[in-house]
């Protein structure tokens, strides 16, 4: 979007990352760079290791080799600058908590384990909810939310972390159109203000519209670069192979 951003530093650098479940490889020495101030997508077929790469970079699952650097530093030194948004389906939404309770979990790092939540923190959490148009439901039990609303709460929690880099695992999976629009507008705004977003994405038809950079993955790296250069028919065919049939008409429209 901005020319001067292209040569800015990397928000996330992944080097030679291999992950295996037992001796079944999920990622095979993947190198990738996600630049600061850009919207990046991670795409690839099911089982390509997209979520695995995000999780391994965040140290949630162990990598057998390779490293991830955040703003040029290991995660331990940059944790406060990174917010991770897990898949919506990974938690039990019947948990006894309200919308604002969940958002305030995002304050964990800034508050530490012991400091109490004060009025200013509460207002800040409400602001974050306002950004995703959820402030009116702040005191709602989370189990009563729709899928899209749940995703918005997760995004608000990430906003509360005041991070420079947002790592999102399938943020648009199973959400309504309005939510998708809200989230993408918000992310674009954050990126325009200098933030960085990396999202695992499964809908090839929206890659060009939503993202500036892309990593195409299928266990190994297929391509990594600007959408214009890397998101090509050839690369996608290499990643998706025979599974591209449903994606092909979409490609002809967008590429």
């Amino acid at each position, binding site marked *: 979007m901005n020319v001067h951003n292209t040569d800015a530093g990397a928000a996330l650098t992944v080097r030679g990352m291999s992950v295996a479940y037992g001796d079944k490889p999920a990622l095979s020495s993947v190198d990738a760079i996600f630049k600061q101030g850009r919207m990046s997508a991670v795409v690839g077929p099911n089982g390509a290791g997209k979520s695995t790469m995000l*999780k391994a970079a*965040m*140290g*949630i699952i162990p990598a057998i080799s390779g490293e991830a650097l955040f703003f040029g530093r290991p995660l331990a030194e940059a*944790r406060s600058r*990174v*917010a*991770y*948004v*897990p898949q919506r389906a*990974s*938690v*039990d*939404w*019947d*948990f*006894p*908590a*309200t919308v604002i*309770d*969940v958002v305030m*979990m*995002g304050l*964990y*790092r800034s*508050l530490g*384990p*012991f400091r109490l939540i004060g009025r200013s923190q509460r207002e800040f959490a409400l602001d974050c909810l306002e950004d995703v148009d959820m402030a009116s439901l702040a005191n709602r*039990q*989370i*189990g*009563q939310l729709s899928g899209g609303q749940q995703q918005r709460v997760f995004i608000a*929690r990430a906003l509360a*972390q005041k991070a420079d880099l947002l*790592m999102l695992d399938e943020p648009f999976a199973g959400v309504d159109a309005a939510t998708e629009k809200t989230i993408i507008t918000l992310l674009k705004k954050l990126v325009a203000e200098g933030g960085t977003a990396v999202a695992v994405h499964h809908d090839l038809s929206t890659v060009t519209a939503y993202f500036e950079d892309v990593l195409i993955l299928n266990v190994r790296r297929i391509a990594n670069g600007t959408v214009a250069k890397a998101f090509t028919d050839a690369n996608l065919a290499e990643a998706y192979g025979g599974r591209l049939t449903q994606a092909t008409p979409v490609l002809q429209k967008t590429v």
Partner: protein
Amino acid sequence: MDGLYIGLVLVPTLIGVLAAVSCALLGNFLVLRKQSLMGDAVSHVVLPGIVVAFIFTGSMSVGPMLLGAAAAALLSALLIELVRNLGKVEPGAAMGVVFTALFALGVVLLEQSDTRDVHFDVEHALYGNLESLVWLAGMDASSMFEPEALADLPPQLGRLALALVAVIAFLVFFWRQLVVSTFDPVFAHAAGVPVRFVGAALISLVAVVAVTAFEAVGAIITIAMLICPAAAARLMTNRLLPQILWSVFFALVSAVVGFWAAGSGMELIGSGFSVSAAGMIAAVSGAILGLCAVAAPQRKGALGH
């Protein structure tokens, strides 16, 4: 106040209440983490721990017994985790393997060792003997202020009070970590919450409480109180703090009503039976859960089953 009443009723009831409340507090998190049966598993392996401690020390003194039981409980938690990861089996099956194997080992060791002259058997391990934890020096209300009389209080009372304090301290100091890592462990991990440590601390505390309670009231109360009050409370509300308060209330009611029903209640219906207070307390907690499952406001859950 009647001295007999204090010594024979109030003190054992208080012991029951302390055990019940400690268990119920932790139980909330076990239920939310879908680890309810950890309490079951941990309570079962207390037996081999005690037997091994007895074999090593040759005495039934409390210190080594508690230590052995706590070690066994932690070992079992570790083994369960190991079997789960190595065998890639569901947690339930892993628990089933570990606790039955260790319990069987405990029974065989008990049969093989010479424990005949000490009073100890499996039944005692299972349902304790709450009724015997009386305070004979408590002759009247004023004995509550006499040091000699207080020294004669059942030592279980002090130990359980200490356990309860430890539980409350844990919940207060680790509240935020506990809640975040229970609701969303993946996010918690990414945000730098020591997820594994919190999980291990929770299970360790369950073990400590199970062991302390076990010695006083037997395994059955421990299992029931770790699960039933928290499960019933879950059906009452959609908020965590109220849920915890409800669970404490239910634990309290179970202990008091259960103990009363086992003793005075039996006399009241004119039967001369003396029945197990521990069993009765567990049964009452189950009845409370049953009532909640039929009529509690949030029994269906927000997801609307």
